[in-house]
């Protein structure tokens, strides 16, 4: 009844019968935010426990992720550079045997995994990073992306090595499995492994509901409001309605089993990503004379931190945070995605996965940042997807509409990907079963509505905190299992050198 009344008021506002009902129609949204924030804030405070370094609050978790990338980089002696060409060769199919035809190719594994990570992080996340951390945040984002390549390499090899093949050929894999089995078999730490696996699974469910869901719904909603007239839009204050529509689409796929919707959405993603990339390149080419200056700003900002709260560290923290959110390296989600692909060599999957942070962060995020810096939109007080949208509109005025479609599609595809990660974690905890799976799926859809109803601040903080929380057990596991990966890697290189694995083309 209450919601009907609100809808009625909204309709009145639309007809211009009431000029006052803006704030009123936002009442329901505010109510949801009010209930949610007291729960979200304590979680955020724990995960982002910060220590003051040189007068800036430094969240320890950000350091945790970057150090993992650094350790993996050094441990595998810069595998992201040494193995880069090999990774490209794998994706080009130069090592694919004729018998592999009909199975998932490396190219397909890469593009599918990318469609799960390329998305709002690249559009909205970058905008958040540069609007708070200044141009210099881009530099630290690129650095974090390069280090993330080594983390992802490691976790995807582990995900492949310790995956579970169920009768019927379906596979389940991911940090839950390598934490449990890997630590038991390799380190004789079965108990600890099990505890880590359970913690990871719980955090993954939280991350799926947060970053993989609420953040997506929120940003998609904000972009829709933006292109349908801003403050005048029909959608103002109707986040719940937008959320409901998204929830129906997602629900029809994950609960109703209407797979075709999911497939259509996922197949539109490469087109959208391509369009986004081409548009970005056009803007950069049009302003080619400013590219040098923009890179200058990026480097200057990175080491002077001029005009940024917290100076260099402020820029660094923002850059690192957004990079981690965008490419998910060290978080463990990619390990779940990659363990679904079938390959005779777990290590080759790691090489392919190593390209993801490169494409996602080093290429696409940098491009977004360049467009924002060049356009001068950084001087406005916009943030999130609105900033990116405004930046693109300076050269391509119609682009916000394309971006709105892209944002909704990206949001949907990321939701599908994360609903799967969360579901795998849920079934790891409670076991497989239709009723159990649907209970999770229902909650997942509910959170879409909540996410679309809240203002950006609490959503971003909560989704960040849950997503980053996954990294705690995952990275401890990675450290403990590094020797396993090293052994596998050495075996793999030996096979290549001996000619057992040969280039076919």
């Amino acid at each position: 009844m209450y919601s009907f009344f609100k809808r009625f008021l909204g309709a009145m506002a639309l007809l211009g019968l009431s000029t006052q009902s803006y704030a009123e129609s936002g009442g329901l949204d505010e109510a949801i935010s009010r209930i949610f924030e007291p729960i979200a804030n304590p979680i955020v405070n724990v995960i982002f426990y910060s220590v003051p370094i040189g007068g800036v609050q430094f969240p320890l978790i950000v350091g945790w992720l970057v150090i993992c990338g650094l350790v993996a980089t050094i441990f595998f002696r810069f595998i992201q550079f040494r193995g880069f060409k090999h990774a490209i060769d794998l994706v080009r199919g130069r090592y694919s045997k004729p018998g592999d035809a009909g199975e998932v190719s490396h190219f397909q594994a890469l593009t599918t995994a990318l469609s799960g990570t390329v998305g709002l992080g690249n559009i909205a996340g970058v905008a958040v990073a540069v609007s708070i951390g200044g141009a210099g945040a881009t530099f630290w984002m690129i650095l974090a992306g390069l280090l993330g390549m080594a983390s992802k390499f490691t976790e995807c090899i582990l995900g492949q090595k310790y995956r579970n093949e169920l009768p019927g050929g379906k596979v389940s894999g991911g940090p839950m499995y390598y934490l449990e089995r890997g630590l038991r078999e390799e380190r004789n730490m079965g108990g600890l492994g099990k505890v880590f696996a359970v913690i990871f699974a719980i955090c993954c469910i939280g991350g799926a509901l947060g970053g993989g869901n609420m953040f997506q719904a929120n940003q998609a909603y904000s972009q829709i409001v933006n292109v349908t007239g801003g403050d005048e839009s029909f959608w103002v204050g109707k986040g719940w309605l937008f959320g409901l529509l998204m929830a129906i689409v997602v629900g029809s796929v994950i609960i109703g089993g209407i797979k075709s919707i999911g497939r259509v959405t996922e197949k539109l993603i490469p087109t959208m990503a391509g369009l986004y990339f081409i548009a970005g390149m056009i803007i950069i080419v049009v302003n080619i004379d400013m590219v040098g200056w923009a890179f200058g700003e990026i480097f200057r900002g990175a080491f002077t931190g001029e005009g940024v709260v917290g100076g260099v560290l402020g820029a660094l923290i923002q850059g690192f945070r957004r990079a981690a959110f965008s490419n998910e390296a060290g978080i463990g989600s990619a390990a779940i995605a990659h363990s679904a692909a079938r390959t005779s060599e777990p290590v080759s999957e790691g090489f392919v996965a190593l390209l993801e942070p490169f494409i996602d962060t080093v290429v696409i995020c940098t491009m977004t940042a360049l467009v924002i810096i060049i356009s001068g939109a950084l001087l406005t007080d916009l943030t999130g997807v609105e900033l990116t949208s405004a930046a693109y509109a300076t050269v391509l005025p119609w682009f916000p509409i394309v971006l709105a479609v892209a944002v909704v599609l990206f949001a949907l595809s990321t939701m599908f990907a994360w609903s799967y990660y969360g579901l795998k974690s849920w079934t790891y905890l409670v076991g497989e079963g239709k009723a159990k799976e649907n209970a999770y799926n229902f909650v997942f859809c509910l959170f879409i509505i909540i996410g679309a109803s809240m203002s950006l601040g609490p959503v971003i903080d909560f989704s960040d905190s849950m997503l980053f929380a996954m990294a705690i057990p995952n990275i401890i596991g990675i450290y403990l299992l590094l020797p396993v990966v090293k052994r596998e890697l050495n075996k793999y290189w030996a096979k290549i050198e001996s000619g057992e694995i040969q280039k076919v083309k």
Partner: protein
Amino acid sequence: MVKTFIVGFDGTDACQRALDFAVSCAKHQSAAVHLVHVLEWSPYKFMSSEEMRERHERKKHEVASAEKFIEPIVEKLRNAGVDITSEVQYGNTTEILCGIAKEKLDSQIFVGRKGSSKLSKLLVGSVGMSLIQSSPVPVTLVP
């Protein structure tokens, strides 16, 4: 002397005609027939994560049903005294047929041609056309 007649076969009428013709040629020259059934497949086609997870199972299923489909045809000809072998492959039809032809000495490729209308003549991308362009051995197009 041709030793092997390679026939691209997908079960259509055109392919059946090609097979019949190849069989009669093979009989005259006491050569063998090699039946190839290609399941169109590209490693660069985008795949949703759902499809990716089911892929291995689906491949097994597809291969099994393809084999089940050509098995009776091969069996019937074998019983009729034709020296016939078969295989099921994933990939691009033209590439697969050319690949097999390269390995088999003294072979020829037989494929059917579906269309006879003016419109279908415009569709240059057909298997027959691309085989003519790239085959290492003589190609026979059976109308």
